[in-house]
């Protein structure tokens, strides 16, 4: 990565020149004051006029201070930072997709793509019906929880609590609140899994709508008693929600439906390789079992006898959760990915993501404390517990950056103190993994012999460690 300090765009020299991006006006000029009242017209826009070449350079320079999967290893746990195939970028930019209006009639290509994607997602998860509307995983969670709320509401049952294990993603309890639920937090047992006795105890309270579960959980461990878990919840009149953030290692191996889940969200930007875009856009489709299909948001795309049907109304539907159809541009990429890999390819994705994670786990546990030591799935979690000289997780993460790698997810899940959550994904070569092991070996040595290097890291990045406290105490959010 090249370092160049880039001034804010607002500090560039202004050149008040004609812009090339507006067509020449080819009708008679009508004065703006004749169209709208003077009082509606603004005097100025404090946005500078900058020559095109300078705009391009500005953003290219900024890009050089940013790190993506295409720059190097990005083992950010729970985010599945796999390679984003370039062909998908090309396909998503076809004018036959980008220029299509969501309200136009001749849209069969879009509808067919979505109907086919639904068909494939049903096969992959075992679920019976899908919506592609949610724009992200958390948006899918909200949709799924609203389906739960509606389901109980139509039965005149007042259920206002959701069980969430303490290892869950922060979005789970936050989504629950947005859907009008309060949460019961369940403490994981000594194996990092959901304790059945506590679950039973919580369910017996009576007003519990269900459970939100990630499987494999955020420790990267498969909940071995998942069928017992879903059975207990069902027997007590609850529904089971599957957080699909960690679906990658189950592709072609097992299906959420068979585990007993009623509602599933997927993160197409994780499992199905659509780029993360610096934070988005993503897509968070929801799959449900047959008895919940009527609660899905509208409009719904269905295939009946090979014909595509759009359902725009439903008495029990939760309604709309987003304007138009969903993040269609993201759906194209996910669809292309599934087509490229096919059933066999997807299974290999699961196998190799687990192979890569276990390869790292078995070697890194000799260097760092591994609180849950058994075969993991796509990721595993180390702790800073045994590090010498007060070196902590943040120090390790910042030092990793110096070696041209992204850091793992840190301080999550909360149940591991000083967590380092590592997810290599299936698209990393053994060479890259070995390199990462070497980096952590070096860092471990530094922790023992020269901790100061770690505490003041990073050293080779465009900027040194930043003051988060200052940023929050005196927020400067614009210029």
């Amino acid at each position, binding site marked *: 990565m090249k370092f160049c300090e880039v001034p804010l765009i607002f500090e560039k020299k202004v050149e008040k020149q004609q812009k090339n991006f507006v067509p020449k006006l080819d009708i008679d000029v009508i004065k703006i004051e004749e169209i709208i009242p003077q009082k509606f017209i603004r005097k100025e826009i404090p946005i500078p006029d900058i020559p095109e070449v300078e705009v391009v350079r500005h953003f290219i320079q900024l890009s050089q201070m940013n790190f993506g999967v295409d720059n190097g290893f990005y083992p950010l746990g729970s985010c599945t930072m796999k390679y984003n195939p370039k062909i998908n970028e090309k396909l998503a930019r076809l004018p036959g997709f980008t220029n299509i209006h969501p309200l136009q009639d001749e849209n069969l290509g879009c509808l067919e793509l979505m109907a086919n994607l639904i068909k494939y997602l049903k096969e992959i998860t075992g679920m019976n019906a899908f919506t592609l509307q949610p724009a992200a995983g958390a948006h899918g969670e909200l949709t799924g*929880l609203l389906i739960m709320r509606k389901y109980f509401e139509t039965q005149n049952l007042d259920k206002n609590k959701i069980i969430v294990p303490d290892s869950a993603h922060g979005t789970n309890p936050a989504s629950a609140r947005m859907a009008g639920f309060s949460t019961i937090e369940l403490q994981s047992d000594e194996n990092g899994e959901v304790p059945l006795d506590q679950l039973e105890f919580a369910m017996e309270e009576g007003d519990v709508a269900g459970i939100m579960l990630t499987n494999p959980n955020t420790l990267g461990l498969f909940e071995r008693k998942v069928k017992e878990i879903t059975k207990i919840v069902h027997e007590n009149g609850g529904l089971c929600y599957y957080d699909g953030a960690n679906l990658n290692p189950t592709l072609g191996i097992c299906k959420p439906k068979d585990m007993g889940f009623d509602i599933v969200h997927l993160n197409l930007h994780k499992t199905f390789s659509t780029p993360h875009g610096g934070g988005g856009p993503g897509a968070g489709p929801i799959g449900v079992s047959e008895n919940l299909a009527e609660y899905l948001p509208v409009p719904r795309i269905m295939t009946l006898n090979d014909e595509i049907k759009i359902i725009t109304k439903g008495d029990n539907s939760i309604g709309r959760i987003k304007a138009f159809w969903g993040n269609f541009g993201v759906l194209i990429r996910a669809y292309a990915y599934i087509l490229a890999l096919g059933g066999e390819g997807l299974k290999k994705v699961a196998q190799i993501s687990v192979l890569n994670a276990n390869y790292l786990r078995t070697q890194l546990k000799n260097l760092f404390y591994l609180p849950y030591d058994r075969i993991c799935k796509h990721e595993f979690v180390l702790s800073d517990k045994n590090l010498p000289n007060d070196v902590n997780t943040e120090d390790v993460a910042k030092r990793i950056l110096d070696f041209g790698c992204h850091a793992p997810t840190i301080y999550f899940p909360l149940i591991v103190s000083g967590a380092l959550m590592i997810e290599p994904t299936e698209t990393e070569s053994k060479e890259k993994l070995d390199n990462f092991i070497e980096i952590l070996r070096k860092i471990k040595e530094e922790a023992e012999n020269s901790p100061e290097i770690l505490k003041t890291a990073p050293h080779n990045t465009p900027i040194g460690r930043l003051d988060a406290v200052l940023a929050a105490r005196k927020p400067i959010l614009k210029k």
Partner: protein
Amino acid sequence: MDFIPHDEDTIKEMLETIGVNSLEELFNDIPKDLMVEKLNLPEGLSEPDLQKYIEKLARKNKVYSYSFLGAGCYYHYIPSLVDFVASRSEFYTSYTPYQAEISQGFLQAMFEYQSIISRLTGMDVANASMYDGSTALAEASTMAALITRKKKILILEGVHPEYIEVVKTYCWAQKISIKIVKEEELLNNLDDSVAAVLIQSPNFFGEIEDLESISRDIKNKAPNCLIIHSMTDPTCLGITNPPGSYDVDIFVAEGQSFGNPPSFGGPGLGIFTVKEKFMRKIPGRLVGQTKEINGDKVGYILTLQAREQHIRREKASSNICTNQALCALMALTYLVSLGETGLREVAIQNFQKADYTKKKLAELPGYKILNKKPTYNEFLLECPNLDTFIEECKKFNLLPPLKISKYYPNLPNVALVCVTELNSRDSIELLIKAAKNANKLETGEKK
């Protein structure tokens, strides 16, 4: 085709290191009866075959030469450099910038995005994006209920019908009631129990509301009621007064018009802005300026995270995690590419071309413009024979206007016409011709 780098020997070597005999053994922790034999999916495709297949699908959609359709999704010119910037791998293959020191590029861009949205809207604080305009409006509504501790929202008629649907869904779960009111009924419905009034301007019918006077009236009658201003095509801000110049508490918009293609309605960009006093209640990511701990360099970092789900969990102001960062980057690139001069020109041309079209159509016998207020780039056109008009448009390769009966069944003969800077004079002439033809055919049939 897969994207896995290992060959068989490497896999074997790695299995040995782990201490297992096969890939299957890595899945021994999964109950046997859960294991599936295989997925019933088509065989994988090579890159050329995949390309051919998807291109075929894309051809099943119709791309028109010109569009007269808007209604929440707009055709504006996108400078080539926008996609060029968004195609930089360093940007689009990165994720939420948790590690600030190697994410300065995106963080600075988001800081600039927040700044430029503030400058354009006159609002104090902008977040780093929401999913789209509709969810931004829905979150603004629930946020207002949370702040005011009131459970009633008034929606002024003219908010995009799909946005109202989304607001309804979000509010239902939190037991917030909503009521849609006409302008003349607004003040009668307003009292201290109202958390917020939602106003779209330019509204769904294209009309610019007099926000200065509406907001004054609202605050006079109910000083604690929040005013939420929503917009579906913010290119009008190139010439119209910024929402921050009125007494607006929250301003949200669909930012697709800024450098993002229609793309069948998504991904778009949720613009979310608030007045300073609500800074710590705003949903979504915020990027702040700070300094090095051991140095003087200025840098950028995700901040005020105590509002967010990963810290606050069930007490977070929203559940949003993944947002629309790349779309925000495209909006930023668009806005600085055009600059003040270009933005003003775009807005003026939208006004001019729509006005020109409006007047031409109004001259035709049988056609009538229904708007009573000034309009931006959309207007309501009553037609003698709407279905024929739409078919005639298609014959000229024009994407026809919206039949507004899709959302308002009581208006069967009304079209919502959208004219932007991309509509050439020729395309407008064709639209007029289509309208004339439709009328002729109509009279012909009657004979």
